């Protein structure tokens, strides 16, 4: 039996004189179920969001070993024909009450170079550091020379993420009444890269509108 119908049902608040949640009233199963369903749906949905955008650029450099995405040239800058980006360090939560993490999807609009393949790789690691395929990655390619959507999806696993204790210590004017909040979060660092097999600065692929988002688990 699922906890939620994945749809938010509005309950008036406060519920008024007939409020089944007010004091000394028998607790009806229907209201309890609606609240549980709503709360679980909100927990699921509120974690699914866009994490990062990038306007893109022109790429023309191939993988270091053609066909082997593990050899993507993460060191290159756009001037050298590769778009390699750090897409941020982000907090991720399990998908609602389920012990499964969301999936991570990078999308872009791509016009490939003539007679060439253009590809995207999204790669994750538990924290800041070198981009490496050790933890997990996903890839996609296109040969279309007209703008088309390219998408790479990676189902996040716990091994790809890191747990970190946060103890926020803001500026120096913390009010005396300020309670301290600290706790553990699960994080993932994300890198996104694009390559093109043309290997010619005179035959470039155009990459536009990169978006990195969390989606429902696959």
């Amino acid at each position, binding site marked *: 039996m*699922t*906890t939620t119908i994945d749809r938010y049902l509005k309950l008036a*608040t*406060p*519920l008024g004189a007939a409020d089944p*949640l*007010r*004091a000394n009233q028998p*607790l009806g*199963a229907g209201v*309890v*179920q609606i*609240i*549980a369903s709503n*709360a*679980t*749906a*909100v*927990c699921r949905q*509120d*974690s*699914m*969001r*866009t994490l*990062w*955008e990038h*306007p*893109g650029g022109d790429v023309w450099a191939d993988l270091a070993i053609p066909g082997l995405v593990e050899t993507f040239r*993460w*060191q290159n*800058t756009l001037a050298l024909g590769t778009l*390699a*980006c*750090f897409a*941020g360090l*982000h907090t991720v*939560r*399990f998908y609602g*009450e389920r012990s499964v993490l969301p999936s991570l999807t990078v*999308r872009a*609009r791509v016009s490939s170079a003539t007679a060439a393949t253009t590809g995207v790789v999204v790669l994750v690691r538990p*924290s*800041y*550091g*070198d981009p490496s395929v050790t933890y997990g990655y996903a890839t996609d390619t296109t040969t279309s020379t007209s703008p088309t959507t390219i998408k790479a999806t990676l189902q996040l696993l716990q091994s790809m993420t890191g747990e970190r204790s*946060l103890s*926020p*210590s*803001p*500026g*120096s*004017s*913390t*009010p005396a009444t*300020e*309670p301290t*909040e600290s*706790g553990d979060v699960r994080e993932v660092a994300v890198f996104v890269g694009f390559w093109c097999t043309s290997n010619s600065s005179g035959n470039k692929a155009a990459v*536009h509108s990169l978006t990195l988002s969390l*989606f429902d688990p696959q």
Partner: protein
Amino acid sequence: MTTTPRTLITPTFDLQTAKVRATTRATHGGTLATLTSDAAGGHLGQCARVFFSPGGTHNLIYWSRNGVKYLAVRALLGPIGAYTITHHLTLDLSARDQTGNTVASSSTAIPSGIKADVQYHLPGNSFSDRWRNSSGLEWWLSVDELVSAGLVIGEVWVFELVISTSGSSIGVENFQITEVPRFAVDSTEDFGQPLTDFLPRGVIVDGSPSGLQRLNESVVWGYENVFRTYHHRSYPHGSPLTTTSATFTAMTGDVESGSNPKKWIVRPRRLRGQSTSGCRVQWATFYKTSGASGGTLRLNSGGFGGPYDLVLAGTSGTWALSNVAQAYLDTSAGEGLDTITFQAKVTAGTLSVATIGVVDDPE
């Protein structure tokens, strides 16, 4: 005021035990309290960001509201080409709100490190490894402190980040200001319920802000006040998106091909079923016009009633925050995706757009 620490967990509520004609048990209230507190404060995630910057002034748009305690400020500094160790940069963060209240970086609400008080160098010299020698940095902003310093909660805030570089071989790979989930239940706030209200074999504590009614209030808070960021782009003041067109057209810097604007794919929050009016959003921009004439920024989406126009007053060369406009995203598509694009026009002169932000506006 009482505060109770909580861990980030979404408990499973077994509906079978709360089925019709079955008696609910004391544990149901406690489980629901944990669940609803998590719905309200455990999934905060509004995020304003800068995708890359070699230096310059950026603005980040943030929709402030009660219930958010801390903002995490994160930056990754890295080399641009071969790094020269004498090259460095400073970060200076200030804030303002819609009313015009400001918090300068010199305020005690802004932590050391992002008040232009530290020269950041990268470790090593004459290297060009972009990542091994990069520096990940983190600071914290207290929303309460920013409010104490003068900002008005509930208004749109604009953070201004000035990246000043000395030398061209260092830049900011990524910068983000993101909400931190709540690690405590605070009885003075409009949501959340301490588990001490649900002691085993005890009577459930009643009365505001306790009692079972708080459960639904917390869920409503999570629905109405946890804003998902759909889109946030920030360009430096020196290279914004621009247009001089008197009719709606794609802005320079935002063109996919020909006269078509870049297409941004978003995944609307689908909590009210599938509909072209299923997801209301609010959006704003940070912009300037070269003269006294105003302009209009347009958001196109699959939502009903569009396109959605944001009328921009002339600013005569001064950067300014726009009003906030509303739009809808389509939640009826199979994958639950919508595509948004932006176009702009200006009566005369040049319209420059530095930042665009789109977040939830639940109804």
